[in-house]
């Protein structure tokens, strides 16, 4: 068997297929021969028995028809029809002659048949002659005579023709049966031969196939199974070596090399996977795609890892800085949120203030309106007061005149008092002089001295009285003077009052104008305050929005902080990860 295995696969396949081709040719030839014999016997059957039978049946049918037409000629009296029937009979007679001739040529090998046919031909000739006579009689109008001829001998002749034809038909049918049996026998024989040859071919083909399967398919299946395991990633496979020198053996050898190569690459990959990038992969040749790729991968991985390490270091430090910045930003955002919150509350307060100021402005406007009315009332009052001042001035002047008259009369009284005082003085002097004289008179003058004393006392009393009167008068005069002064001052005051009232009127008028302007201004202020309030409302809303945004900011910053923390952790993790790689 080893010699077969050592044959090249190409040769094996060629041998196998040649043998199978030869077997197929034998089978085809056998089948062809059988089928050809069967076809030949069928053709003979058709040509010699089936056609002959048909001719005999046709001849019999023509004979019957001709007889029927003759009978019809006898029956009918129509001449033209008789003639037409006669022609038809003649034609059918010709057909029968032609059939007889064909049969004679066809069955020239069969003497038995020929003899029967000869007898038929003789009988028919006699029949034909008699029929010719009948036709002549019929045409002559002697149908009855013709019928008479027809009976008897003619009838027998006709029956004989029919019997011979039937016998011939029977003969041919039996012959056909015989031939059919022969043909069946031959076909069975060829079928047996074909079966035997086919079975032999199948057995041989199966044996060849099994041999080929053992020689090629089984090792290939084994290798395919190993390849399947390799395809599934398993490399711990054992490919047994075989001493075969054919392509399968070569394939196994090459497969072993391939597996070893893949194992080497897998080890290299495993090392790289374990983080050892220091190993250098040497490609087996320039066409070693995988080796080249692994080599390039190792070098590029080294390069990439180096860059990644640098990048990760930068990332770690950057993430640390970002985290710090984010913390600051987050605290700043929190402070901003707090400030915004305070600002919002402040704006709310300002809004309240604006509301209050709006209300105040409104009330100020109302007050200003009332003030305008009050100012008008004040103006009228001032005018009335000016008029009143005028009246007061007149009365004060009258008072002044009265006081002046009073003063003059006081002056007169003073003069009178001076006179009285003078009199009292003189009386006093007189009393002193009387006392002096009384003293000079000595004892006699004592009574006079008493009188003088009394006079002096009177003088003193009158002096005291005048003095009191003068005092009173002085008081009156002082009072009068004071009254005059007061009146003058009053006059002046009234004048001042008039002037001031006029000024006050003017002032009130100007004030009224001012208040009018103030009122308008207050109305405008009220409107402005309203607008301001609306503006403050909008500002409050905006501040509310800002506050929400700021809160969202804070939330966002918290998330950013978390994210940055995650980034930082990621950076540290990456650093740890990268540290595992030996470059």
């Amino acid at each position, binding site marked *: 068997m080893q010699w077969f295995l050592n044959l090249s696969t190409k040769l094996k396949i060629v041998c196998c297929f040649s043998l199978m081709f030869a077997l197929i040719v034998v089978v085809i030839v056998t089948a062809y021969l059988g089928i050809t014999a069967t076809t030949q016997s069928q053709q003979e059957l058709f040509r010699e028995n089936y056609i002959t039978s048909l001719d005999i049946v046709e001849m019999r049918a023509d004979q019957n028809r001709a007889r029927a037409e003759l009978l019809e000629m006898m029956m009918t009296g129509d001449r033209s029809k008789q003639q037409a029937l006669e022609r038809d009979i003649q034609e059918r007679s010709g057909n029968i002659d032609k059939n007889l001739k064909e049969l004679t040529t066809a069955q020239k090998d069969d003497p038995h048949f020929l003899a029967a046919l000869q007898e038929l031909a003789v009988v028919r000739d006699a029949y034909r002659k008699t029929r010719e006579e009948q036709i002549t009689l019929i045409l002559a109008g002697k149908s009855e005579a013709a019928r008479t001829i027809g009976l008897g001998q003619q009838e027998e002749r006709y029956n004989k023709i029919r019997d011979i034809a039937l016998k011939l038909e029977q003969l041919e049918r039996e012959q056909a049966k015989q031939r059919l049996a022969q043909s069946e026998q031959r076909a069975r024989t060829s079928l047996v031969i074909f079966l035997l040859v086919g079975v032999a071919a199948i057995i041989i083909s199966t044996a060849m196939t099994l041999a080929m399967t053992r020689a090629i398919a089984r090792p290939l299946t084994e290798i395919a199974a190993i390849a399947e395991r390799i395809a599934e990633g398993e490399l711990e496979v054992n490919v047994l070596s075989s001493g075969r020198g054919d392509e399968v053996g070569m394939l196994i050898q090459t497969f072993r090399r391939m597996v070893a190569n893949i194992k080497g690459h897998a080890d290299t990959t495993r090392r790289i996977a374990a983080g050892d990038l220091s190993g250098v992969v040497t490609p087996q040749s320039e066409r070693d795609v995988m080796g080249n790729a692994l080599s390039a991968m190792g070098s590029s991985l080294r390069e990439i890892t180096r860059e990644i390490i640098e990048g990760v270091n930068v990332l770690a430090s950057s993430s640390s800085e970002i985290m710090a910045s984010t913390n600051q930003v987050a605290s700043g955002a929190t402070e901003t949120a707090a400030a915004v919150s305070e600002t919002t509350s402040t704006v709310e307060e300002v809004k309240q203030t604006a509301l209050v100021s709006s209300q105040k402005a409104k009330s100020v406007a109302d007050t200003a309106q009332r003030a305008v009315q009050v100012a008008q009332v004040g103006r009228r009052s001032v005018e009335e007061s000016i008029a009143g001042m005028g009246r007061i001035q007149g009365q004060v002047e009258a008072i002044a005149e009265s006081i002046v008259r009073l003063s003059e009369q006081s002056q007169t009284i003073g003069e009178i008092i001076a006179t009285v005082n003078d009199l009292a003085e003189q009386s006093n002097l007189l009393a002193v002089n009387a*006392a*002096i004289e009384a*003293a000079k008179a000595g004892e006699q003058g004592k009574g006079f001295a008493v009188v003088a004393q009394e006079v002096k006392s009177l003088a003193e009393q009158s002096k005291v009285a005048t003095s009191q009167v003068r005092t009173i008068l002085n008081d009156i005069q002082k009072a009068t003077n004071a009254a005059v002064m007061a009146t003058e001052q009053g006059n002046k005051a009234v004048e001042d009052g008039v002037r001031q009232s006029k000024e006050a009127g003017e002032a009130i008028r100007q004030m009224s104008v001012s208040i009018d302007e103030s009122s308008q201004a207050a109305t405008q202020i009220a409107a402005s305050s309203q607008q301001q309030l609306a503006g403050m409302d909008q500002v409050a809303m905006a501040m509310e929005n800002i506050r929400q945004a700021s809160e969202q900011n804070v939330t966002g910053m918290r998330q950013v902080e978390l994210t940055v923390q995650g980034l930082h952790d990621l950076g540290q993790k990456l650093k740890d990860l990268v540290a595992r790689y030996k470059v």
Partner: protein
Amino acid sequence: MDETSNERQRILKARAAALAREPEKSTSEAERLEVVEFLLADERYAIESAYIGEVYPLKDLTPLPCTPAFVLGVINMRGKILSVIDLRIFFDLPNRGLSDLNKVIVLHHGAMEFGVLADAIIAARWIPRSDLLATLPTLTEIRAEYLMGVTEERLVVLDGGKILSDRSIVVHEEV
């Protein structure tokens, strides 16, 4: 009601005071001095009535030129020309000017007669001689000469006789 009761009380008190006053001592003629008391520059002076002719209001004073400062001028006293002396010059009293109320005390003794200016005549009264105190040692010259004495009431009593007899008062000048 209160006022009337107060008034009544006051009157009753005044009466009680009047009744409680010691009666004047009935001194003898020789022991008492009758004087005319007058005011001069707010000081009370007095001159013995014996030397006084009368008192007269100072009216229509006519200043005399070419006379000493103490000669105030002359007045017409009922058709009699009377010279008026100003004692304030002698006593270094402040000059307060003159008014209608000024009086002239007419001093006379024998042939000598002149008027002395007084601001006001207070009264003619009696004072006991014993009340007169000695002159103040601080007063000298003419003031000491004219002074008769000072009472406890600080009434300066002038000696009318000495004033009248003083030759320095007599003016004899030719211009």
